[in-house]
């Protein structure tokens, strides 16, 4: 006899699980269906198949520019966050110092700050310093909010690695930097990649903070938010939505599978 679930209980829970999955994916599927619907308003009955909306967004220069801006911001901020995250994670896992728990609490605190509060705080900072809002001000904000995610991915990986490998390299005369380059970095590389991807997708999708500090070059979420207020743009926004959702789902699943494969191979 199974102690946690009866046969019927398991069946019931499986049914519930399936219903929830349907509930979670139905809105995405509905968007997918309407992205091919020829009517300009997403209503039933469906009026016919078209690729018109996909064509529309491919030739929409503003939209493409916003995707490009977001890609640049996401690349810069996730590189920044990963570098800072590696430095902080090594200190947290490999060094002893006073006030470690306070330092780690500070490093993780951007996780819980309401983004609306952080957004206006940055706005006031840049206003006070007279820094004009631009692509860089968004990057600065995104590094702050993605840094804790990189640390949460990197610290468990660093904890898994056998410290004696690093000690051996150090004892053989390698500097700490050399030890890091030749031993630590290759071992944590899968985690570095997934930290980068998490930071990248977070930044690419971030609206709240960006909305306060963005300059004249709008990011993709900001373009989307504005477009959502004009019904005539809805069909092509739906088409973009489908492309972005499918691409991000693929990246997320591929990254997760890659991480598991890599960790299984390196598991020691």
């Amino acid at each position, binding site marked *: 006899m199974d102690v946690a679930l009866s046969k019927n209980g398991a069946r019931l829970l499986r049914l519930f699980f399936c219903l929830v999955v349907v509930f*979670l994916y139905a*809105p995405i599927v509905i968007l997918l269906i309407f992205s091919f619907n020829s009517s300009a308003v997403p209503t039933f009955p469906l009026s016919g198949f078209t690729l018109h909306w996909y064509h529309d967004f491919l030739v929409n220069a503003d939209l493409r520019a916003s995707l490009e801006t977001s890609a640049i911001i996401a690349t810069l901020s996730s590189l920044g966050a990963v570098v*800072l995250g590696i430095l902080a994670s090594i200190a947290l896992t490999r060094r002893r110092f006073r006030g470690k728990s306070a330092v780690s609490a500070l490093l993780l605190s951007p996780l819980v700050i309401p983004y609306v509060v952080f957004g206006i705080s940055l706005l006031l900072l840049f206003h006070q310093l007279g820094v004009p809002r631009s692509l860089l001000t968004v990057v600065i904000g995104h590094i702050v909010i993605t840094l804790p995610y990189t640390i949460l991915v990197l610290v468990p990986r660093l904890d898994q690695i056998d410290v004696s490998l690093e000690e051996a390299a150090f004892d053989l005369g390698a500097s700490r930097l050399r030890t890091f380059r030749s031993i630590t970095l290759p071992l944590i590389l899968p985690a570095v990649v997934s930290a980068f991807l998490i930071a990248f997708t977070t930044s690419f999708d971030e609206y709240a903070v960006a909305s306060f500090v963005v300059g004249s070059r709008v990011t993709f979420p900001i373009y989307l938010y504005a477009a959502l207020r004009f019904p005539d743009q809805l069909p092509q926004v739906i088409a973009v939505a489908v492309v972005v959702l499918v691409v991000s789902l693929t990246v997320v699943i591929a990254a997760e599978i890659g991480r598991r494969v890599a960790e299984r191979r390196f598991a020691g």
Partner: protein
Amino acid sequence: MAIAEAREPPAPRRRRLRPDLTTPTLLGLPLAWLAVFFLAPIAIVAAYSLDVYSLDPGPHSLTLSAWHDFLHSSIYLRLFWKSVKMSLAVSAMVVVLAYPLAYYLALSGTKRKYVLLLLLIAPFLTSYLLRVLAWKVILGDQGVINSFLFWTGVRSPDHPISQLLYSRFAVMLVLGYIWLPFVALPIFVSLESLDRRLLEAASDLGASRLQAFRKITLPLSLPGVFAAFLFVFIPTLGEFITPSLVGGTSGYMYGNQIVDLFGTGFPDWQTGSVLALFLLGVVAALTVVFARFLQPGQVSTD
């Protein structure tokens, strides 16, 4: 160390010349970044809330008037309380829904539990705005649900169910939809680490499944449940995107008020700063009080 130096005498000199990864080198950059771009901005908000800095030109002196007005204003506090109630309801709803999902994945002995977990969480990792957009398309007066009802003749096109969109209901439904996949994770982790031998022992001693659940599984999974609850409650309390897209006036939340005070209409940065700091204070207090449930280890999927 001693051996290495004996064998390689120039090593100490080389080490001095090379940049080395000392603790200050490692922590300097991340901490400086947070000091300048995270802590300093919050201090500036505090300065605005006390009128030390201000949008208006002219001389300024420190005053608590905005704080006083805020704490005696029924509008802002009532709005805050409304947001608290909405967030509590959303958090409770998603935790109750997510618990059986996590229970199924962790304890039913299904072989594909990590695949199913990924299936569950994947929507959370896709675009936030686009998931809100999907519901806007579904719930509108001419949206998917209403047009389906017209089409099938259940309702006449003159009388759509108009409460679907731009309502408190819409805000809570969309927030629940957005957070549901994510909250299953901490609950799953706490159930997954449960020692099944405890359940076997309970069963051997004659406990029914329900008794075993009430006395063992549920209490041991409570840290995960609390973590899940806070993971939803904290961000939804300051939410402004979803209410501004699907909330209308009845779904207006505290976060929207903050945004509007910093908006282009009638900006009042002093009051806005007070509201923002008050929210931050509440969230910080919750985080500190419940810190033991929010350990990073509990969110790790490994």
